[in-house]
């Protein structure tokens, strides 16, 4: 039997090491790197972030991550920024999920045969030997 499943991704209480790795992927795309314990400032406020990507933005100094009640929150003054807060959040979630799948497949002894970044998202193909 074969099947396909459609579901909605949600992340709560993320693994911080994996989250940092996912941020590193985004940081590389943005030409920056991940910094720990950084204060992210914007037009109308600031927040202390355990993980952040420093970036010179028109009204801010980068993208920051805070975990509130187990949920990932992105802090940024995104006016004129390369990615809006919601685009950044979605890309971070996708990347985190892809990295988690890569780790889980290793635990299961499966092999990833293909990873592609497509227009609609990230595609991963896995052989299971089932």
């Amino acid at each position, binding site marked *: 039997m074969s099947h396909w499943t459609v579901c909605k991704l949600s992340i709560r209480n993320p693994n911080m090491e994996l989250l940092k790795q996912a941020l590193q992927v985004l940081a590389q795309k943005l030409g920056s790197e991940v910094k720990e314990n950084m204060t992210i400032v914007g037009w109308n406020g600031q927040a202390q972030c355990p993980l952040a990507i420093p970036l010179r933005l028109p009204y801010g100094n980068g993208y920051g991550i805070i975990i509130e009640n187990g949920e990932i929150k992105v802090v940024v003054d995104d006016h004129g920024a390369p990615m809006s807060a919601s685009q950044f959040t979605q890309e971070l979630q996708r990347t985190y999920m892809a990295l988690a799948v890569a780790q*889980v497949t290793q635990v299961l002894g499966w092999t990833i045969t293909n990873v592609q970044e497509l227009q609609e998202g990230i595609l991963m193909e*896995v052989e299971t030997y089932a």
Partner: protein
Amino acid sequence: MPKIRILIQKDGKVIIDAEGFTGKKCLEETKKLEDLLKGYGISLGSKEVHLKPEYHVREREVVTG
């Protein structure tokens, strides 16, 4: 070779496509994947599961064979 394709869409929708499995194995294997992902705080909610047409073909083959 049984395969699982995972498409993580931009809107956070995840499509898991299992093919080449026999019996209930595909559901068991994707459940293993989902269970381990929970350890990373990932939950795949609002699930819709669609059986593929070949499932019914195979069932009929078993009955008549």
